[in-house]
């Protein structure tokens, strides 16, 4: 019973990792760049939600939707104005650029909102439900349900909508997509905006657990482990990878005495390194995406 309890907690925190990893994967699949600022966008999402819900006193759902919209628009212009300029330069340049952007966002957040820890009330805070002796908090439930809903929405978007198919086409082959009349640049910016929006969703869902401050951007680093484990190119892989990381973290935290001290904090990174060494393709990759030497 304790194990199932742990699994549920692990799945809930894993969903957050999965959502952030999903952001990495969307951008990577399309543009072959990695957005190291994903965690910082999540942080911005949480802060914007705090401003709208906590300070302006908006209704939770309205504030949620508006936050996602604001961050998505922000993501669109981030690509259109800044990131697009370095297309074609070595991967190193993108890595440095997005790290720099992450620092700017974090600095901006701590100047504009301050370095205190904030919270805002949600309909889920403090409520729990009991089921066969399992204690499930509404917050965890909201995370799991939110992730599932978002996954289905994205699935239908990418499978049935015209823009979704255009996105898949341009990530499959840019040049061919151009020839078919797809506005590839616009599509790429749109993918950045979706990815930022997903990060904002993760930020708002996470806010009741970790509260809102600048340090939550570190989640982005753990989400790398989820993305790599899932194969870094597969959308279901990102979520499954995230859930595995979440569960591993919970288990390491509980059984710390049997392993070594402090294993919980680095378990995600250990999984990441082991995946890269043993099976760098990841669990869900359909083709070999990693060049072998």
């Amino acid at each position, binding site marked *: 019973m304790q194990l199932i309890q742990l699994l549920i907690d692990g799945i809930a925190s894993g969903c957050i990792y999965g959502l952030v990893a999903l952001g990495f994967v969307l951008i990577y699949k399309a*543009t*072959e*760049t*990695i957005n190291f600022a994903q965690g910082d966008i999540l942080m911005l999402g949480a802060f914007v939600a705090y401003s709208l819900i906590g300070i302006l006193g908006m209704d939770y759902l309205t504030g949620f939707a508006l936050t996602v919209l604001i961050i998505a628009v922000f993501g669109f212009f981030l690509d259109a104005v*800044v990131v697009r*300029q*370095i*297309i*074609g*330069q*070595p*991967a*190193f*340049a*993108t*890595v*440095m*650029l997005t*790290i*720099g*952007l*992450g*620092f*700017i*966002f*974090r*600095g*901006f*957040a*701590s*100047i504009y909102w301050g*370095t205190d820890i904030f919270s805002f009330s949600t309909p889920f805070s403090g409520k729990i439900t009991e089921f066969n002796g399992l204690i499930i908090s509404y917050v965890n439930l909201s995370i799991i349900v939110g992730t599932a809903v978002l996954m289905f929405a994205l699935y239908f978007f990418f499978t049935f909508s015209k823009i979704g198919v255009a996105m898949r086409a341009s990530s499959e082959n*840019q040049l061919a997509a151009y020839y078919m009349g797809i506005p590839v640049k616009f599509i790429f910016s749109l993918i950045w905006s979706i990815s930022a929006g997903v990060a904002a969703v993760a930020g708002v869902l996470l806010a009741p657990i970790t509260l809102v401050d*600048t340090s939550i951007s570190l989640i982005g*680093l753990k989400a*790398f*482990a989820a993305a*790599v484990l899932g194969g*870094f190119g597969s959308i279901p892989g990102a979520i499954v990878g995230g859930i595995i990381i979440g569960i591993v973290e919970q288990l390491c935290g509980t059984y710390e005495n049997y392993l*070594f*001290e*402090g294993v919980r*904090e*680095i378990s995600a*990174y*250990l999984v*990441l*390194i082991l995946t*890269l*060494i043993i099976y*760098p393709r990841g669990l869900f990759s359909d*083709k*070999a*995406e*990693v*060049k*072998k*030497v």
Partner: protein
Amino acid sequence: MRFIFKTKYSQDINIAKHNGDRFWYSLLILIMVVLPLVLDDFYLGEISYICILSIAGIGLMILSGYTGLASLGHAAFLGVGAYTHAFLLTNGIPFYASIPVVIIVSFLVGAAIGIPILRLTGMYLAIATLALGFIAEHVFIKWEHFTGGNRGLPVPQPEFLGMSFYDSVFFYYVCLVFLIAAMFAAINILRSPTGRAFVAIRDSEIAAQSLGVNLGLYKALSFAISGAFTGLAGALLAHYIGYLAPDIFNIFLSLTLLLLIVVGGMGSLHGTVFGAIFVGFLPQLIAICRDYLPSSIGSQPGLEPMLFGLILVFFILYEPLGIYGRWMKIKLFFELFPTYKRQTFKKQKVFTKSDRV
């Protein structure tokens, strides 16, 4: 415009290409040697710190600038060097014996890290080194027997050649000598077949492989050499700081090293020194900025990361060759005056290169 008239093959392998180089670099070394007569202790300390940063920068430059492998966890090597040095000194090993051991240990650590992850390229490598940096920081905290954990580890300041490391003039000379030695070592490594292989790997792995470069071996070697330089810098840093705590060697230090090589100019050893000067004086620069900004913004703690990020983004977008690249442009302007063409350095239009197979 200077035309070098070559009469001997040995001229091709000279470090200094012509007498002008020889004159200016000798003058620079002479100025550095007499500097303690002019400057007071505070500035000597700053310049010693810049020398240490330059040595660490040389290490990262060999890995990232010349071999094209990104490392986001290089502070780990600084940590390995610093802790090994402090541990050896505490156990009574003299300074001159400790430094070679530190270099060998960090070389081996570099090789040990390089071998398992050299299958990775590009951003996978960046992510892996980032994770390794975190794990290393954690090891520094938890391995208390060796590092003292969160309590920290005082660094003994032994006598060396009858002088004490507390003497800032002496410490300045030690750092300067190590910087010059490291520079010579790096220049010679980079113009040897090993260094040529590094550059070949950076420019095209497939082409390098077809020319007979063993990618695995040379990537691991690059990691190891880079680790050795950075470890040496770590040992000197231990003396500079005086008291080691694990949170010194965090991700921010790794990123500062990256900022150093990006600002200095990727792929040039001059760039490491320019970058080190920039990074060394960055705190002062920020302090000056604070004075000029309105106090509501100037007193914020978030200003530092924000400026850090802005500088990084600015250089990546507008001056990818860094300060050294700018210096080359200025030099060429005067050499070619009045026929300098802006187009010489114009960014070429490039298309996305795909890593996918």
